[in-house]
């Protein structure tokens, strides 16, 4: 057994007028002679300890201080002592130890019942503890009510309140309830004891609904069904509504991959020239393809001619010396810099002027360097002089390499970047592909007109000998772009092919802005093929160009990979450009 000293367990004042202190006696005084435990107290302003005035009223092991001994806001100290020893001591003031008695006279009355008689509201009333003088305002109490069904274990609590009545709503008339209340001084934290339990039984007053055992549960099923229906209706109405804002708010558009400056719809359905201009204008595109190719010279076009779009055809443009530098072929100035300012992203450039504007705004320093020579790749007719050759020559080996490996990877290269892309490179590749069989032909795209037409330029050889052939210069070519139209090319080829029958035939068959048709190319190739007997020097013995198989759709211009007579494919009058796949077909 542990030895326990006498201890003061608590001191309490129920009404702030009297107070009592209680202690535990401990278990040792039986062992020795009975010791008499005393409670001594002292007010703060006194010197002597006095003994407890009343050991009886509050029960055993207690001390009761009546009103005459109680001063509310005065500090007290009490101590538990016997003759020689002090067992315990406590100091407090009466206002700190107020714990009211429980409320009395609990009762309840029925307020009303529900229509079905299953639920009822009651009002519970009680009186404050009789000891607390609330009427004179000496003490202010607040009450906390707790209730539960008879067979439940957990009490439900209401918030403490000052009033002595409270309604309880929606009690089940079929069940019995228990209610209890306790009180505390308003600014204290501790509650007094609970009152006696009040039993609420509806059957006693005759409104109990014993047979109303069915519990009307919350109609979850109905709620869910209606909720889903409502939501579905809302969603459908939003989707169908014409209000774009609302629609955007509820169903924000999912961002789709989008290349800045390129409108996918336009690619599908738009005019070639528009698309072409977009692609041409799209700086990123070119940059991606050729960012490794520092040696690739991009021609920077100065497009300043506002009349460009008024020109009759690209042919004229290409041929005319006036347009040498300005607004050139595509009128697109290319440079390596990311061209954020390049046109409106979603507005296709349909004419040169727009492109010009676009180009004008872009930096062109890089390309200016690259194109010191102002080699207008696009307008080969003009530039087709020896200037271009050195650059081409320089790039030959690399181009060759590129050609072998990258042809397929840049299907659009020739076209998309035809504006300034290494047409010469392509050309050179074509011309330098020793490794390629004679069946590999490439058409060098010299230009892409804003309308989206590809202008195939003469091969390198043809360049060399360009000066010679001036055929096909007419403006018959309806295409105003770099795309080849069969008819036009035919004419040219036909004209040229007759003239020469050598490896250079191609160059001659190509004008500066040569247009090719399948047949014409074929012819050319055939001619060329015939002349491949010549040992290839540094250049390809094979034809420089492949026949063009122009497909119907404006998706692309197919270059036929073989020099053999190409099946007569239809030409797309609109002169579509070569698509990736088609270009891939060309290459072996």
């Amino acid at each position, binding site marked *: 057994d542990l030895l326990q000293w006498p201890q003061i367990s608590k001191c309490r004042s129920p009404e*702030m007028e009297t107070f009592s202190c209680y202690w535990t006696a401990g278990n040792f005084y039986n062992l020795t002679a009975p010791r008499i435990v005393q409670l001594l107290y002292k007010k703060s302003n006194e010197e002597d300890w006095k003994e407890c005035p009343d050991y009886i009223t509050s029960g055993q092991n207690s001390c009761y201080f009546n*009103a005459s001994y109680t*001063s509310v806001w005065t500090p007290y100290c009490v101590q538990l002592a016997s003759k020689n020893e002090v067992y315990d001591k406590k100091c407090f003031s009466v206002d700190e130890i107020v714990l009211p008695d429980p409320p009395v006279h609990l009762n309840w009355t029925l307020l009303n019942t529900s229509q079905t008689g299953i639920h009822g509201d009651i009002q519970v009333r009680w009186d404050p503890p009789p000891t607390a003088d609330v*009427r*004179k*305002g000496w003490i202010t109490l607040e009450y906390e009510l707790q209730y539960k069904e008879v067979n439940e274990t957990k009490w439900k609590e209401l918030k403490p309140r000052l009033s002595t009545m409270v309604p309880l709503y929606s009690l089940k008339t079929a069940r019995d309830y228990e209610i209890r209340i306790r009180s505390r001084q308003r*600014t204290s934290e501790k509650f007094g004891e609970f009152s006696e339990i009040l039993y609420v039984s509806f059957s006693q007053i005759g409104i109990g609904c014993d047979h109303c055992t069915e519990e009307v549960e919350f109609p979850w099923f109905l709620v869910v069904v209606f909720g889903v229906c409502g939501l579905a209706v809302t969603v459908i109405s939003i989707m169908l509504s014409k209000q774009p804002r609302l629609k955007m708010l509820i169903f924000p558009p999912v961002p789709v991959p989008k290349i800045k400056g390129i409108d996918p719809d336009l690619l599908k359905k738009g005019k070639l020239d528009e698309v072409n201009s977009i692609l041409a204008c799209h700086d990123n595109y070119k940059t991606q393809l050729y960012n490794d190719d520092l040696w690739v010279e991009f021609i920077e076009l100065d497009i300043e001619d506002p009349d460009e779009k008024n020109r009759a055809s690209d042919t004229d443009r290409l041929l005319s010396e006036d347009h040498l530098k300005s607004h050139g072929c595509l009128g697109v100035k290319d440079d390596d810099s990311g061209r954020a300012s390049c046109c409106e992203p979603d507005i296709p450039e349909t004419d040169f002027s727009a492109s010009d504007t676009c180009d004008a705004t872009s930096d062109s320093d890089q390309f200016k360097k690259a194109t010191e020579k102002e080699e207008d790749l696009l307008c080969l007719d003009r530039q087709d002089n020896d200037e271009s050759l050195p650059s081409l020559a320089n790039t030959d080996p690399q181009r060759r390499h590129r050609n072998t490996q990258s042809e397929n990877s840049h299907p659009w290269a020739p076209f998309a970047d035809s504006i300034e892309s290494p047409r010469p490179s392509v050309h050179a590749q074509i011309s330098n592909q020793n490794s390629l069989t004679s069946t590999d032909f490439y058409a060098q795209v010299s230009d892409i007109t804003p309308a989206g037409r590809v202008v195939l330029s003469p091969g390198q050889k043809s360049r060399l000998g360009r000066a010679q052939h001036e055929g096909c210069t007419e403006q018959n070519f309806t295409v105003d772009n770099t795309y080849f139209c069969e008819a036009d090319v035919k004419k040219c080829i036909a004209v040229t092919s007759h003239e020469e029958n050598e490896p250079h035939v191609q160059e001659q068959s190509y004008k500066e802005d040569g247009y090719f048709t399948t047949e014409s190319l074929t012819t050319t190739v055939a001619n060329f093929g015939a002349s491949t007997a010549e040992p290839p020097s540094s250049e390809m013995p094979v034809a420089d160009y492949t026949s063009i198989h122009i497909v119907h759709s404006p998706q692309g211009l197919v270059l036929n990979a073989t020099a053999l007579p190409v099946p007569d494919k239809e030409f797309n009058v609109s002169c579509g450009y070569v698509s990736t796949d088609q270009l891939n077909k060309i290459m072996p």
Partner: protein
Amino acid sequence: GLLLVVLLVSHMLLTKEGVTSLPICPNGSGNCQLSLEELFDRAVKLSHYIHFLSSEMFNEFDERYAQGRGFIAKAVNSCHTASLTTPEDKEQAQQIHHEDLLNLILGVLRSWNDPLIHLASEVQRIKEAPETILWKAVEIEEQNKRLLEGMEKIVGRVHSGEVGNDIYTPWDGLPSLQLDDEDSRLFAFYNLLHCLRRDSHKIDNYLKVLKCRLIHDNNC
């Protein structure tokens, strides 16, 4: 004219934060007069709020700084307002004349004006004082001012004759709040907060007694 101004001012005072009742007299209204009941209601609300804040502040301070220092054992502290003879039990409170009681209340409130100002400023120098204590100190000081002004209005209404002596106890505890020794300084704060809690409880009780006596005729 003067009475009107007094009423308007008292209305403005008593409807500040801490008093949640709706204003009966909107500013500028000419015929408005706050009833004594309304004045008492507001005064009781203010005093209850002040006591609530003091109680909480004391508890927080006790928890934070006083544990293990044995401050409670030195509970025999004397507050500077001990010299004011205030009723110590219900009987005394019932026997005292309401005008005297009102004057006493005013005296206690005035005596706390100064200490509260210094408490608000000095408590900030306590090392790592919690924000809640700082805020409460400032709030109590403000509300105490308002209650004082409200009480003066009530006294003006209730007093039949001239206003009694200006009851007031000066406070000289500022140096103890600025002691270098941390233990002594904290004990000084502990004492002050303990006294504040007690006195605010007294004021709250007296006002409720007066309200029940004067307004509800001892039948609250």
